[in-house]
């Protein structure tokens, strides 16, 4: 493991710990203790990262946003990985027409512009729980995973050890589950780790546009959306969630690259 990978893993671990523990120690992210005199305050012992235009504590909102943003991204990536893997395996292993139809289905999923589909779906569904938002993001993220897993399945089907298993009479389902599926996991793990950064940015973008996590709930993208009018007068309102986004996405990318180097040395 390279030093950069350790840094990435450490940052992700710290952010995850922050997302779990932070909201407990930081208090209510929606409390408005003093909207008249307590808004747009600089960092101080009472408000570690200052307050926003409604006098809400930014540290509390950052912590709450971390939980929501990271959870949404993690759920999105997991849903895409499970669904995409199942479909990719089926498309790679199914013979004849069924396999071709599944491949067309994956192509269709890849052809749909994800962000536009999400805008339409999220606008139609309105406000939703963040877990459901994660599922919706995942439901549009599977085609990339499915294509990857299909390719791996096709490659592994010709592996000598798969031929050996067939030669010893293993039925097709057992071959798929015990011989081929484990071989696709490294690629899925790498893609999912790198995909985590995408999912974080996607959620931030959607929340910034106003169709993801909606106010008053805190998310990093939503905090940017609410802070955009104060970039001149209170720039830390913009910088702090930005810093969190940069840290999370670059950490996921560093870790994903390191995983790729160690799990898939042939793609270097």
């Amino acid at each position: 493991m390279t030093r950069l990978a350790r840094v990435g893993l450490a940052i992700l671990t710290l952010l995850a710990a922050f997302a779990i523990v932070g909201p407990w120690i930081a208090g209510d992210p929606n409390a408005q203790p003093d909207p008249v005199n307590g808004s747009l305050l600089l960092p101080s012992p009472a408000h570690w990262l200052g307050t926003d235009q409604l006098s809400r504590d930014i540290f509390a909102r950052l912590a709450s946003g971390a939980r929501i943003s990271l959870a949404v991204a993690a759920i999105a990536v997991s849903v895409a990985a499970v669904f995409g893997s199942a479909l990719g395996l089926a498309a790679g292993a199914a013979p004849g027409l069924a396999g071709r139809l599944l491949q067309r289905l994956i192509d269709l999923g890849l052809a749909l512009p994800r962000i536009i589909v999400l805008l339409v779906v999220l606008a139609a569904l309105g406000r939703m729980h963040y877990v459901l938002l994660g599922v919706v993001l995942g439901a549009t993220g599977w085609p990339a995973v499915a294509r990857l897993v299909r390719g791996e399945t096709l490659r592994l089907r010709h592996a000598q050890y798969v031929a050996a298993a067939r030669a010893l009479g293993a039925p097709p389902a057992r071959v798929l589950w015990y011989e081929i599926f484990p071989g696709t996991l490294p690629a899925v793990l790498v893609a999912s780790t790198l995909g985590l950064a995408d999912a974080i940015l996607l959620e931030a973008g959607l929340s910034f546009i106003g169709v993801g996590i909606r106010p008053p709930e805190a998310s990093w993208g939503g905090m940017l959306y609410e802070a955009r009018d104060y970039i001149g007068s209170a720039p830390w309102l913009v910088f702090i969630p930005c810093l969190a986004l940069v840290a999370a996405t670059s950490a996921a990318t560093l870790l994903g690259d390191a995983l790729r180097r160690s799990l898939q040395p042939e793609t270097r």
Partner: protein
Amino acid sequence: MTPLLEVSDLNISFPRDGAPLVPVDDVSFMVSPGELVALVGESGCGKTLTGLALPRLLPRGAVLGPRSAVRFDGTDLTRLSERELRSYRGRRIAMVFQDPMTSLNPVMRIGTQIAEAIHAHRKVSSRDARERVLALLAEVGIADPPARINAYPHQLSGGMRQRVLIAMALAGQPDLLIADEPTTALDVTVQAQILELLDRLRAARGMAVLLISHDLGIVAGRADRVLVMYAGRIVESAATAQLFAHPAHPYTRGLFASIPRLDATTTRLTPIRGTVPRPDQWPDGCRFHPRCPVAVSRCLTQRPPLELVAPDQRAACWVAQGAAT
């Protein structure tokens, strides 16, 4: 003795534009129970395809000829469905492939892989399967099976991996083991051990072995019978002692002349002139005639059948048959 395996007119072709490629052309042979038969030939002569055809594991696009039959214990395997064949694969006919580096799943512990081969054929508890795995590992000569059972393939040497593959093949207690170049990827010292192991297993289990190899030397001390293949056909079939004492086919003699010998006084080996032609350029008549030192005019046009030239010895050669009669 009734044969365990009787292959007749095995014909494997690949359709394409123009004339189809026929890399295996009317191959017939038999294997008796408990017999070790060696199938020998240069690379590209069709010996691997012949081995794959027995449990019908041919690559996509390959077509079996209409007269081809692979009778195993009385059943013609070419007529069975894929599902019916699965009860033969592993349980009656097992295969060991050439490359032990790639024939094991790199992400599974070897114990799991052998257990998987057991589970493929019968319902057993995981505890019983583990006992069987340990017994199999011991049987193929792996020292300290309880320590090795959790090893991953990359932790084992090539010879050990080949032993693991053999253990997997034995898991279904097959009557016939097809070993396709089982020692080619291994060091010379390990080659002998693996052959020794195969020979011992066949004696202990009464299992027939079809040993596919390009190396006439390694089959010398082990095989009961040798089949020599050239350009998709069997050109000579004889008991091992007879073949080594009096090779009848010029190709077989050429093979012997190109093997270094310790007891010979000659300092230069005699190679066979030319190379094996590609399957789309196989000549008419006897396919060996362009390289044959004794070819006569008949060899250019008429295909020689595989006929007896001596007791226990058949050769597909007009010259050898002429000398015998």
